[in-house]
């Protein structure tokens, strides 16, 4: 058994206050005039100082108390990243309640499940849209007593008695606070590090979502560990635009911000994120790989339209950056000539590029949640953005491994973070232990017992190994790692990620456990392939049409072949080369249950839904008819059908020796 830890110093996590409300009050005293939050609203960045935030949180907390919110009650919080929703989380914590974060784009039924599961009586929601959902599911959630909305727009004619504006609540709270000035401080004083501070639902690739209960201690440990690790200060600026219900946002925008005392910035709306990013220019940044990928795609597409001279300059200096950019960032020795070229490139290309992307001021950027393509990762690092990977789950406060500055590897997730112990089980499964582990799954002792073993290790369900430098490398979900008929390893995620690193491939699902060879479903990237098709003058009427064109199959076959060549080079993987693939007639969609809300493939669901297609591929048919039900954005359903082509791909003989990068 392989165990790695990073010199645990358990004392360090407890150096400051031990609950989030105490951290908040600490900042309100230590840096009352410093900006805690900004929100782009009404055309400018409305700024709230720590003192103002504390005052508002107080008002919300007292208001909730006035409504009858009790210690231990759950408060649902739904909406985009709005300061008042963050305050509601904090207010709930002040009262010893448990905020339950819900995805704002969840449909009513999904919300109903969470409301029932967490026995929620109080909800703070953003606007009319969320209120409508709450009203709709009210019959299914009989416990729900109060729904408090942030934005009163359009709410004038709602007569439901359970509705209340956040403004009124705060007003009520202020009166309450005046009448009982010691009440809230008393409540805060009752809080303990071991109390549950937050409930985050795991989307769960199988079964119903589970509520992960994390304590103040856990998130404070995770936050302070990361703060130490990257030397974060209270001067950082971060843009909060990822769903509040995602553990990543809670760690970065709430836990780390509250512990370190830096500023979070909420964008004006979904459409203005890019612009807001450019204005704020965060110093600390966190995004899943797809955001970085979209940005890069946009960069490349926009550069295509540039004049030839500009394009030449761009590509020349991007070559320079590829050659030496990452090394310069890592402080490795680089020749004087390259240094000069890079300096020039920084002036002409990288600097302006970062400016347009909103990344000029970034000191540290992280990506997590899925594997990031090596080219993508290298691109950002080469232009001087200190992009790093981290590894973690909701159950571990998204905090297990971090890549240390100067020791960045493209295909690892770094070393165990401060206070964290990582161990590999015999089957390759990664086990972790530390202060950041979940307390329990809400009302699911069975699940809790299943995921934490007798020694107190959390079983991540991921398979991986440590490389020679002690960096953790993730291969796949442990349970997904199967065996081919010949006994070699089949790691579908690993292969799919390799496929997805091609810009034309949006999603891929591979099958092959127990078979002679592997097969794959492909979703093409409509934007990238569409662009490519336009350049070639191909006409197409939409996704389904484009996906079935022979030329597109040609294009994708190239990608698959390259992946096969890559796989052939790895003795463990060479057996799982893809022999046949097809391009799906529709995009995999969370609304159809094919993806999770975090856009992870729900493998088993897909295997069941498209069983006939898989069968056809393994049987070697040339085409297969399929009809599928789809759900549109407005909730209606319809049918899509197509005759799908199935094509063969060249496979390679296994090669011993050097692996391709």
């Amino acid at each position, binding site marked *: 058994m392989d165990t790695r830890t990073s010199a645990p110093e358990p004392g360090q996590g407890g150096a400051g206050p031990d609950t989030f409300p105490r951290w908040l009050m600490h900042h309100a005293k230590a840096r009352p005039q410093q900006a805690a939050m*900004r929100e782009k609203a009404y*055309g*400018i*960045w*409305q*700024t709230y100082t720590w003192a103002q935030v504390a005052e508002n949180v107080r008002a919300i907390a007292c208001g909730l108390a006035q409504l009858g919110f009790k210690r231990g009650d759950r408060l649902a919080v739904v909406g985009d990243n709005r300061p008042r929703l963050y305050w509601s989380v904090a207010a709930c914590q002040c009262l010893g309640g448990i905020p339950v974060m819900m995805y704002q784009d969840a449909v009513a039924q999904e919300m109903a499940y969470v409301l029932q599961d967490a026995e929620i009586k109080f909800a703070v929601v953003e606007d009319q849209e969320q209120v409508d959902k709450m009203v709709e599911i009210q019959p299914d959630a009989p416990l729900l007593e109060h729904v408090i909305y942030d934005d009163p727009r359009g709410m004038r004619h709602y007569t439901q008695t359970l509705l209340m504006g956040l403004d009124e609540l705060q007003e009520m709270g202020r009166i309450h606070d005046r009448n009982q000035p010691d009440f809230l401080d008393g409540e805060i004083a009752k809080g303990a590090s071991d109390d549950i501070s937050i409930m985050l639902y795991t989307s769960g690739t199988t079964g119903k979502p589970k509520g992960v209960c994390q304590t103040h201690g856990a998130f404070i440990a995770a936050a302070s560990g990361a703060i130490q690790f990257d030397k974060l200060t209270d001067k950082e*600026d971060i843009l909060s635009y990822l769903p509040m219900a995602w553990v990543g946002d809670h760690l970065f925008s709430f836990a780390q911000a509250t512990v370190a005392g830096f500023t979070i*910035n909420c964008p004006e709306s979904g459409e203005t994120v890019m612009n807001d990013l*450019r*204005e*704020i*220019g965060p110093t600390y940044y966190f995004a899943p790989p797809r955001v970085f990928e979209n940005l890069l795609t946009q*960069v490349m597409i*926009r*550069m295509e*339209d*540039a*004049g030839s001279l*500009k394009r030449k*300059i*761009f590509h020349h200096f991007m070559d320079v950056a590829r050659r030496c950019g990452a090394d310069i960032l890592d402080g490795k020795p680089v020749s004087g000539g390259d240094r000069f070229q890079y300096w020039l490139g920084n*002036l*002409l*290309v990288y*600097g*302006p*590029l*970062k*400016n*347009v992307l*909103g*990344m*000029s*001021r970034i000191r540290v950027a992280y990506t997590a949640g899925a594997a990031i393509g090596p080219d993508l990762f290298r691109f950002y690092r080469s232009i001087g953005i200190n992009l790093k990977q981290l590894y973690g789950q909701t159950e571990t406060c998204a905090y297990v491994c971090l890549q240390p500055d100067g020791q960045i590897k493209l295909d690892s997730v770094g070393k165990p973070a401060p206070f964290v112990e990582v161990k590999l089980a015999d089957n390759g499964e990664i086990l972790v232990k530390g202060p950041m582990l979940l307390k329990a799954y809400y009302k699911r002792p069975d699940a809790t017992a299943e995921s934490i073993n007798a020694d107190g290790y959390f079983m991540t369900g991921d398979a991986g190994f440590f490389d020679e430098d002690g960096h953790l490398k993730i291969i796949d979900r442990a349970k997904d790692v199967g065996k081919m008929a010949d006994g070699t390893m089949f790691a579908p995620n690993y292969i799919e990620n390799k496929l997805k690193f091609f810009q034309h491939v949006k999603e891929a699902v591979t099958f092959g456990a127990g078979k002679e060879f592997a097969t794959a479903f492909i979703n093409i990237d409509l934007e990238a392939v569409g662009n490519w098709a336009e350049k070639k003058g191909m006409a197409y009427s939409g996704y389904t049409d484009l996906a079935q064109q022979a030329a597109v199959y040609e294009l994708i076959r190239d990608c698959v072949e390259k992946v096969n060549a890559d796989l052939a080079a790895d003795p463990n993987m060479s057996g799982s080369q893809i022999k046949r693939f097809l391009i799906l007639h529709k995009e995999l969609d969370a609304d159809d249950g094919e993806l999770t809300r975090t856009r992870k493939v729900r493998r088993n669901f897909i295997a069941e839904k498209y069983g006939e297609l898989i069968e056809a591929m393994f049987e070697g048919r040339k085409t297969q008819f399929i009809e599928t039900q789809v759900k549109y954005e407005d909730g209606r359903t319809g049918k899509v059908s197509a005759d799908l082509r199935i094509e063969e791909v060249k496979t390679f003989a296994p090669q011993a020796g050097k692996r391709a990068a």
Partner: protein
Amino acid sequence: MLYRENGQFKTSYAADQQIFPIFQERWAMALLLLVAFVVLPLVGSEYWFRAILIPFLILSLAALGLNILVGYCGQISLGTGAFMAVGAYAAYNFMVRIDGMPLIVAMLLGGLSATVIGVLFGIPSLRIKGLYLAVATLAAQFFTDWAFLRIGWFTNNSSSGSVSMARLDVFGVPIESPVTKYLFVLTVVCVFALMAKNLVRSAIGRQWMAIRDMDVAAAVIGIRPMYAKLSAFAVSSFIVGVAGVLWAFIHLGAWEPAAFSIDRSFQLLFMVIIGGLGSIAGAFLGAGFIVLLPLALDQIPHLLGIPLSTATITHLVHMIFGALIVFFLIVEPHGLAKLWSVGKQKLRLWPFPH
């Protein structure tokens, strides 16, 4: 390319409404002012001040005034020279008829006189538009040409018809040497440019532009056409009048009505068109261009060893101006200022094309 705007976010409307909201531009402007106020006076030659900088600045000011009328309010004027003349002769009369009249007061009174005449000739704009208004302003031009030539009172009965101003001072500082003249003009121009900028970004500026862009819609939201148009005439003629005072007193010293002839009016209109309608910076760019082009046509062939005769240069200048007017009206009605801002935008987006 040179812009680094990340982190320059605005947390108040005051910050958002600055004239130069971008930090790098504020610095560039500060640098420009530093060069204009400190470096140039140290290194400039007399020729520079006399033949280039002073005329450039004064004509910029006049073009600025005209631009408020034409570019911002959409009212054409072919009589700018007349309003300059009114300013110049009025100030002259205030100076010679009132003992101890300070230069600055006379200058402002000159501007005010131009305002009065400007508003008077602007009154037709309430009834007539476009070309008709052009005729009204031409009437002002011809009438003042005549008045200052024929009515002896205006020239203090000077026998030659030419009048002169010498020994000027401001707060006891003599405005005699080219450098002091330059600094005085520069200061006046900067103050007026700033105030003009303030006006065009305030309520009145929006009213002007609203009248220019769609007068019926402007009236429907409560803008009084009369007030908007006449205030544009007033502000425009005031600035033009002040420019006239500077042109006469500082640049020429001694002058006759021909200095403010219809050619001057056309010249200023060209500056505004080439520089950019509806832009403060455009007035400076246009004036710079029109002042420098003849000099360049004079100097460059000289340097290349193919000297052109004065007449040829005059004709060439005419042709180039004429062609450029048409060119700009067709290709870029907002003139050099637009090209400048497009260039700026390109720099901001670099390396992307859009």
